[in-house]
């Protein structure tokens, strides 16, 4: 894949696949053939240094699995993940630890991602302990204070002695961000970092994350189902459907001029706070729900729900990502006719 825009690539994912074999009992394994869940089914993308890259999809699209694969929390079935040009899918224990120092993760649930028995100080000290950054108490303290200041939890001393449950959702997500920053990572994987935070304060957290990203020159892989925040927050997005990327490009470009019928449907379905729609039944271009990843339709995997489906969509091989120019990729063979 060629680079549309200049800038060096920090993370490159190459035909990455993750297939789960459901756990079966001893006796069951004699029965029917095991159904393989193809959670991630051959995706490729590149993230440039200093970029915010959004991975958009419904539940079951494989976006969270992709995040975990990049974090090496689970092992890939096949494919490569190149971090700074180096394949990290098959590295050893020590190298994985070093990799995790550079690539950090923010989780969706700010209530669950911190040990409830740890004080904020302990939460932030843990990465320093794990990576044996420094044994000096004062030096650690300075780093913790700096990280808390970075995420605008001030004065930091007020927060260090508290337990996570004493903080609001937004504050916890700040602490979670501070915990990742303390190791000076190069890249952050943020899996729905604001979806559990009240709408009224969501933007505040996104602002903070963006500020941090600018200040420290970080790269984000931002995973979400929410197109609205993605448009504001990200530079480029990739839309996933059933384990594949169906469209990828600049956020504004994709939302204003979607090429793939799935992306169109997604955009169509987002409600808009404007009057005069109460008595209107919204026209939805697609029906039904996302099929199970253990039973992916043949041909173009979207054909079962696609309003523009033609026999060839079902019969011919799945379309690969095609470049529309200016780095806007899509995977629909009929885009010209429907555009």
């Amino acid at each position, binding site marked *: 894949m060629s680079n549309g825009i200049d800038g060096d690539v920090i993370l490159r994912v190459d035909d990455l696949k993750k297939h789960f074999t459901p756990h079966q009992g001893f006796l069951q394994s004699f029965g029917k053939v095991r159904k393989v869940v193809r959670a991630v089914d051959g995706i490729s993308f590149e993230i440039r240094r200093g970029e915010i890259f959004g991975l958009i999809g419904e539940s079951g699209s494989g976006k969270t699995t992709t995040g975990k694969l990049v974090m090496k929390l689970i092992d890939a079935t096949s494919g490569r993940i190149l971090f700074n040009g180096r394949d990290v899918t098959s590295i050893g224990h020590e190298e994985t630890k070093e990799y995790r120092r550079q690539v950090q993760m923010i989780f969706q649930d700010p209530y669950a991602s911190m040990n409830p028995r740890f004080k904020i100080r302990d939460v932030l000290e843990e990465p320093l302990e794990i990576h044996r950054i420094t044994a000096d108490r004062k030096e650690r303290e300075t780093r913790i204070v700096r990280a808390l200041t970075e995420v605008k939890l001030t004065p930091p001393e007020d927060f260090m002695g508290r337990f996570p449950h004493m903080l609001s959702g937004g504050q916890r997500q700040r602490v979670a961000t501070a915990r990742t920053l303390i190791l000076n990572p190069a890249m952050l994987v943020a899996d729905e970092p604001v979806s559990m935070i*009240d*709408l*009224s*304060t969501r933007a505040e957290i996104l602002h903070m994350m963006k500020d941090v990203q600018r200040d420290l020159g970080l790269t984000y892989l931002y995973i979400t189902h929410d197109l609205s*925040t993605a448009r*504001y927050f990200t530079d480029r997005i990739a839309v996933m459907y059933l384990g594949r990327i169906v469209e990828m490009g600049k956020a504004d470009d994709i939302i204003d001029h979607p090429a793939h019928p799935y992306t169109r449907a997604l955009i169509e379905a987002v*409600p808009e706070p404007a009057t005069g*729609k109460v008595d209107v039944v*919204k026209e939805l271009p697609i029906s039904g*729900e996302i099929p199970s990843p253990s039973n992916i339709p043949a041909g173009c995997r979207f054909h079962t729900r696609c309003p523009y489906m033609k026999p060839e969509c079902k019969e011919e091989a799945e379309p690969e990502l095609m470049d529309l120019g200016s780095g806007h990729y899509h995977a629909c063979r009929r885009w010209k006719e429907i555009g």
Partner: protein
Amino acid sequence: MSETVLQVKNLKLYYHTSKGAVKALDDVSFDLKAGETLGLVGESGCGKTTMGTGLLRMPTPPGRFEGGQILVEGRDILPLPEKEIRKDFRWEKVSMVFQGAMNCLTPVYTIGKQMMETLQEHRSMEKAEAQELIKEYLSYVGLPADVTSRYPHELSGGMKQRVVIATALFLKPRLVILDEPTTALDVIVQAQIINLLKKLKKTFDLSFIFITHDLALEAEVSDRICVMYAGKIAELGTNEQVYGGKGPAHPYTERLLAATPRLRRKVESLSFIPGTPPDLIAPPSGCRFHPRCPRVYERCRMEEPPVREIEPGHLAACWRCFE
């Protein structure tokens, strides 16, 4: 408009905790006409869900009614004995789709069995007849009849939510309270469910109370919007009054609307409301929103604004709006 289905008058509902009374609903009044959808919006912890369970007269312990009236078809339900409530009122006149209810279906029973149980609790009818009824209602919500023999884990989130909605409609209630019915669903499924609700409302001549924290969603379903803040009504107006060109009256609604991300508009910066909703054991003096309000002035800190009509059918509780 047509007859009034529900009238809430000065309702007070407090949670009594060891630290004091949490005034979850403090002097709330509104009414609801037949065939109307009233939206309840606000941040988490502002009393939306309390209102929902309160209207069914089953406040979550340690909640207790501390005053006011809930008139359903003109009859106050607060003093009625529990037996009568169960026989004539709950699920018969007013039913509810609880938040996350679709994840609360019992995993070990089939959908049919669970729906049958609800039905038999209230109606004595032949099993075959009941099964027919269940199938009929499943078809109303767009599900095939064979769903009855399936288990919850075999259904998708959207299908489960449809089952829950069908169960809420069984006994032909006049009013259905929907508490965040689409929050856990994907955006396309959410749109499908909203369409379904609109269709059902017409078919059964229902009234809805639609509880959500998402103002954008509220705009698509509710005839009137009731914005709640810290257990009180901040603003109550028609869809046009809240979302129309003039914009909402109350600064809280205004800020909330500004914080709602919009897909179709490119913005450089999203706005947000700094701070958190207040502690309802000891709410701030004067207007409860004043510590977070951008338009606060002296009077807001001292006096609590009453809920007043600022134009026909448009209520607000803000000193600025009265000027």
